[in-house]
């Protein structure tokens, strides 16, 4: 730290006199005003910082949204898989023979008691032609 000397009024005056005597006294232009530069600096800094913060926040929001979306989709997938399993189970249970038989009995259906197989004369297949008659083929 520099020490500023104490100046008395008696020592300051002779200096001024010397200057006036030299005849080269001129008007010193006022110093240029730099007040606006500081404001602009702060404004720029603020804008930059705000932009960066906003960008980071927006990015985080987007990432979070994506993650939440993925999570939601995962939940949806799980639910759909569960529903699919449940539907498969229902289809399998509904097509189980025991249920169909029960339903059929409930509806009054009965297996046929008589089955008759009739061979059309002259259209019998290879073998003993006599045995391929309609009488032989009936099953009563």
């Amino acid at each position, binding site marked *: 730290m520099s020490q500023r000397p104490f100046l008395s009024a008696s020592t300051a005056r002779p200096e001024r006199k010397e200057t006036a005597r030299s005849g080269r006294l001129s008007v010193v232009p006022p110093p240029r005003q730099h007040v606006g530069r500081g404001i602009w600096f702060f404004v720029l800094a603020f804008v930059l910082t705000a932009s960066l913060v906003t960008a980071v926040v927006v990015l985080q929001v987007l990432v979070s949204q994506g*993650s939440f979306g993925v999570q939601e989709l995962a939940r949806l997938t799980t639910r759909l898989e569960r529903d699919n399993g449940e539907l498969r*189970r229902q289809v399998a249970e509904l097509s189980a023979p025991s249920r169909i038989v029960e339903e059929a009995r409930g509806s009054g259906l009965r297996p046929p008691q008589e089955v008759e197989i009739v*061979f059309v004369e002259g259209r019998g297949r290879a073998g003993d032609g006599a045995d391929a008659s309609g009488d032989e083929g009936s099953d009563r």
Partner: protein
Amino acid sequence: MTGGRPTPSRRPRRRLLRPPAQRLIGLLVVFVLGFSGILVRLVVLQVADASAYQDLAQAQRGRAISLPAPRGSIFDRDLHELAMSLPAKAVFVDPALVRKPMQVARTVAGVLDLSPAEVYAAVTAAEGRFVYLARGVEVETAERLKDMKLPGIGFLDETRRYYPAGEVASQVLGFAGVDGTGLEGLERQYDSLLDGREGHAQVEEDPNGRMIPQAVRRDDPPVPGRDIVLTIDQDLQYRAQASLERAVRTNKARGGTVIVMDPKTGDVLAMATYPWFDPNHFAAASSEEWRNRAVTDAFEPGSVNKVIMAAATLELGLVTLDQRFNIPDEIQVFDRTYHDAHSHPMEQMTLADIVAQSSNVGAITVAQLLGDEMLASYLYDFGFGKPTGIGFPGESPGILAPPEEWWGTTLPSISIGQGVAVTALQMAGVYATIANGGVSVRPRLVRGTIEDDGAFAPFPPSPTRRVVSEDTAAAVTRILSYAVQVGTGGEAEIPGFWVAGKTGTAQKPRPNSLGYSDKYVASFIGITPASDPALVVAAVLDEPETKYGGVAAAPLFQEVARFALALLRVPPAPKPPTPPSASPAG
């Protein structure tokens, strides 16, 4: 600077102006030491103990989740699901976190339908912080319990095996345990194919157990198991089981077996064993009921075995269809006398008569033309003494002594189906060989798999081998058809289709001593339609009150075969030509 500067005269001002070097140095040292301490601590935290703290942090918020791999489904030949995996939950308890054990036990037991005492024991377990309360719980039930927010009760994702058709083909399918491992039947045989690979996910959670969306997540996705498609037809299997159950009850039998086969492909369309069980509750059944006796249990076949003697002698040209033999009703071979089932005077019989009347004496007379070596050779060729290769766990090879171990009565005994043991599947395979023109096709239960893209990938066709010539097979079929028409198998006849088959009534050997008991195995194995074989059906009843195969098993054969013919839309076929006979009936 010009001029003298006034020197401050007052002492306090002079002290202010003096540079505080010592203080600054002191402050600097303090700062340096402070920052050094922080630096050292940072190095310790960030470098030396970094991994430990990382692990600690990860353990605090990270959680490894296992992602269950669904086990592949088992379909019947028409893609009806017979076994499937459904999403489920495992419910566990951390006893250290349970505050009111009695209340929790009562609530959990009520929701999960468990014994409160058992749940209480688990909830108050002194050791460990993880005790399963229930596995394979339905998701809805678990969600209901989860909504109660009971402290200490946790849930894990898993799958549970479900058999929607219940008891249908239960012994064939077998079952898988709670951890998804195949324990019996095809579930066990094809476990490596059906079983998927479990996946894992590493997730991060907040203190409330919610997943942190932005957190790093490493997924090792599960690989689902492969679906398999069986040769079994669900409807035919159901009908076979229904008919078998009725036959067992009607004949007051101990049990029974029905097999329906396609002789051309070796596909087993139905395989039923009574008593059966519900694989959804397999623990409630005995291990005896789990067994697929059609494949795992061997029995003395009795007269159904006479077909091999007939085929072998015809193939070797030792007899002809019209050759007549003088057959008494008993015959002495070494130290044993063999009788026919019914006494009769000396009769002239052709080979067809011997088979149709199931004459033991006739069968022995003809078999003696073969000799030990040749009979043993044909028995082996027809599949005796070795597993069929169907691919089923615990398949029995049956019992067939090598010919060098045969003694005086072995040949006559085997020719009438004693002294040899076969499974029902082996015996059905003999008839399938005859039905397939003398070519044996290895039986199979699995047609193929379903690939990831949903396409069906068939297994290669079963290997085949010729056992007897086509002419021999045709001649034997005629004999068997004759046996049904005029012989002991009349009850099996299906007019319009015609059946070629043989009855068997075999005395059961005493379990722990020599000789035979007074219990029987009644059987009927047949081919239909006789003139254009499409199906082989084996019906076997264990210890029926009505001991004869023609009475107890033949109607069972007929019931199953008729349904199978209709289901598979097999067209009727004419009656096959009758073989030469010396009997007036023929």
